[in-house]
């Protein structure tokens, strides 16, 4: 009886142990979007080649060990450096990645705020001109030169 109890207990431990120890915490396919293939310099999710395959295998192994997303990223950085991250760490010069796009959008909005009223004023001025208008009146000097030219062609 004691032997049977021991065998049952060992069987339960054998079944439950590995499952608890290596529960995946990260979706491999989602994780691929957050890291780069360090040789081809594209997202790992679209990268092909031996290095990309090797990197994927490393990630699969880390996921199988039950590591979370940050732990896997830290492990990859220790092997490949910061360039393995699709989004660089938010410190130092890397902050430009986050602030430059915002700055560009603000600049574009500011330009539109300045340019739009001008365009509207210009469009209104054009619309206010009488139909068939040929533009500003000729000066006396220009009118005289035009008459002279036309007279020359009439001869």
């Amino acid at each position, binding site marked *: 009886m004691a032997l049977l109890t021991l065998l049952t207990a060992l069987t339960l431990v054998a079944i439950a142990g590995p499952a608890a120890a290596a529960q995946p915490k990260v979706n491999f396919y989602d994780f691929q979007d957050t890291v780069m293939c360090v040789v081809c310099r594209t997202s790992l999710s679209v990268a092909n080649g031996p*290095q990309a395959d090797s990197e994927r295998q490393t990630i699969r192994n880390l996921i199988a060990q039950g590591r979370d997303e940050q732990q896997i990223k830290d492990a990859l950085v220790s092997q490949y450096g910061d360039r393995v991250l699709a989004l660089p760490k938010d410190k130092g010069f890397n902050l430009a990645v986050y602030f430059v796009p915002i700055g560009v959008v603000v600049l574009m909005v500011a330009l539109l705020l300045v340019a739009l009223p001008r365009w509207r004023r210009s469009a209104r001025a054009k619309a206010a001109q009488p139909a068939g208008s040929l533009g500003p009146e000729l000066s006396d000097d220009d009118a005289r030169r035009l008459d002279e030219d036309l007279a020359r062609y009439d001869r």
Partner: protein
Amino acid sequence: MRRYAVPGVVTVVCVALLALLIYGVTQQGEGDKLATALGKGEKPVAIDATLPRLGATGTNSLADYRGKVVVLNFFASWCAPCADEAPLIERTQRLLRKSGATFLGVSWNDTEQDSSAFLRQHGLIYPAIRDVTGSYAKAYGVKGMPESFVIDKRGRIVALSRGVMDERFVKSQIEPLLSAPQ
């Protein structure tokens, strides 16, 4: 004044882009510079860096091999041509050791575990370091793998091999250095 603003900005942008293009065209990578210098018969001083050892604690650098011939070999476990080159490196390393010279492997774009396994699998016994950030490979202008740089006893680069080394390269570029005076 205002009517010159837009053409002025456009001109400045065009000039800047043109300058960038000229800079890009004229600027050579370090690898090209090395190849050009070697082609002219120059012997550029080898770039040194202290990097973590592969499969061991501590660091290693070219300075540790001062006065010896060193062949810097950039490799990775996933690189098939590196595997093709491994038997020749293994034979040559035995020859180099007799003269106090050595290969110094540089594992690049690879995990420590995989690189160590690669060395074991191919029976490679040379010391190796890890270029985790890729800055050392960049300094040498390494673009593919394997690439090897032969450094003489005075710490100058005297030859380089882009791609798989062959027997002829070993005989013509490495072996003559072993008997050369410092």
